[in-house]
């Protein structure tokens, strides 16, 4: 894909496909029907590494606020609460991932999509998201190291 952007996480190339939008909390949004499909960006997946367990704490069809807690993810290296990227409605979840979340790692921009989301908000373009990554990279490294010390 020639229109992919790449953000370097150390030696790792985190791809940022040009066909979709991005939210600051490191999910992508791909227009699909009335709304978006939402998934983890390569940047997120690199930090999470192998995802073991995904759990949604809201029901399909729930209207959410920005930053509302919607679920949890556990991976080989991390645990995290997941939050809504903006105000909107979480229409439904990728049921396949609840059985087996490996698609998040193997096809994070495709079959590894997380949920369907409708919203009136606008999101970041790929270059804007890369800027966010650039600006936040030092902080992210500090944050990770801060949890170690």
């Amino acid at each position, binding site marked *: 894909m020639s229109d992919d952007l790449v953000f370097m*996480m*150390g*030696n*790792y190339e985190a791809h940022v496909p040009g066909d979709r939008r991005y939210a*600051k*909390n*490191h*999910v992508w949004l791909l227009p699909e029907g009335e709304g978006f499909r939402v998934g983890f960006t390569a940047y*997120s997946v*690199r*930090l*999470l*590494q192998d995802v*073991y*367990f995904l*759990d949604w*704490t809201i029901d399909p069809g729930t209207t959410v606020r*920005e*930053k509302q*807690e919607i679920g*949890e993810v*556990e*991976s080989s*290296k*991390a*645990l*995290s*609460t*997941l*939050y*809504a*990227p903006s105000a909107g409605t979480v229409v439904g979840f990728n049921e396949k991932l609840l*059985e*087996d*979340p*490996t698609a998040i790692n193997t096809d994070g921009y495709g079959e590894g999509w997380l949920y369907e989301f409708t919203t009136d908000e606008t999101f970041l373009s790929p270059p804007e998201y890369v800027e966010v990554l650039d600006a936040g990279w030092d902080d*992210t*490294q500090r*944050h*990770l*190291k801060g*949890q*170690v010390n």
Partner: protein
Amino acid sequence: MAGHKITVVIAQHQGKNPAKRELEEELAARLLMEPDFDCSLVPHLYDMSHDHTGMLFLRSVPGDVVLLSWLYPRAAFWTLDRAGVTGKFGHTLLVPEDDDEIDSEDAPPEPTGRESNRTITCIDLRNESDPEAYLDEIRRIAGESAVETVDLMSWIGGDPKKEQLERYLKPANNGSNGNGHQSVDASAEPVQLFDVTDEMAKRRWYPVIDYDRCTNCMECIDFCLFGVYGVDNVDTILVEQQDNCKKGCPACSRVCPENAIIFPNHKTAAIAGADGEVAGLKIDLSKLFGGEEKDPLAMAVAERDAELVADGRDAVGMAVGIPKRQTETVTAARDELDDLIDGLDDLDL
């Protein structure tokens, strides 16, 4: 010790992670080859209902048990206790590799479990990926058990009748232990597999009390406004209405001053029953995904308010059931972070 078999139970993981399934299956296959072990496979311990055949089986085992599960040993032990499977807490030597420095001053008191003639040893399957390590440890435990419980040999080695089992399982004190134990007729059939292919409909969520730690201070019953907690006839705290518990909400665990309330599936190791062992202590990426940092009491209050509002009730904030003493509301083994360091190495930061 001819005739004495130790019962080894593998409790499966909730998910279908192929690596985890493979370890479970490999272990089961190898254990079946061992003449001294009775091996059984049950579904995920925490999700099994009280009358699930796997649980009935567990309650019917009179002697020593080694339980292999994907839970912290404390979480698994007290989950069993809640289900009426009680015993002494068996200590395993199979612990996370980088556990060394924890044993010193900050180590919490050693769990003891119940006064009992038998020992239940819970081993966390996250510790090791090599099945042989578990077999070695089970052999070691079996060796110890053969020495310690020699007076029980004839009984265990024999084939107890149902009434004997009942008596054993329901001692004179009416079998009530604060975790809500009620004895149920148990079949002593030597079955190996318990509905593990039949995916359980739903994942459950409820608190499990560690009675080694609980001081019966009643802060949980004051704090929880959903009627989960109750007391028995001698005023011992117990989880009375577990289905009233709000999925994902660990608020009572955060306010417990002794860290005695375990939610075995919570993402935070200390809440999930880690005990100086921090195999599961992982980087929390919540901030990255949009979360904000709060202190535990504020988190507990926010979690409770969210559940109240979801129920159509009014949020109460700090107005109800706040511990009088607010020091040490956090108990967390937050120091042992070798695996995090390993994690960072892998990140090439």
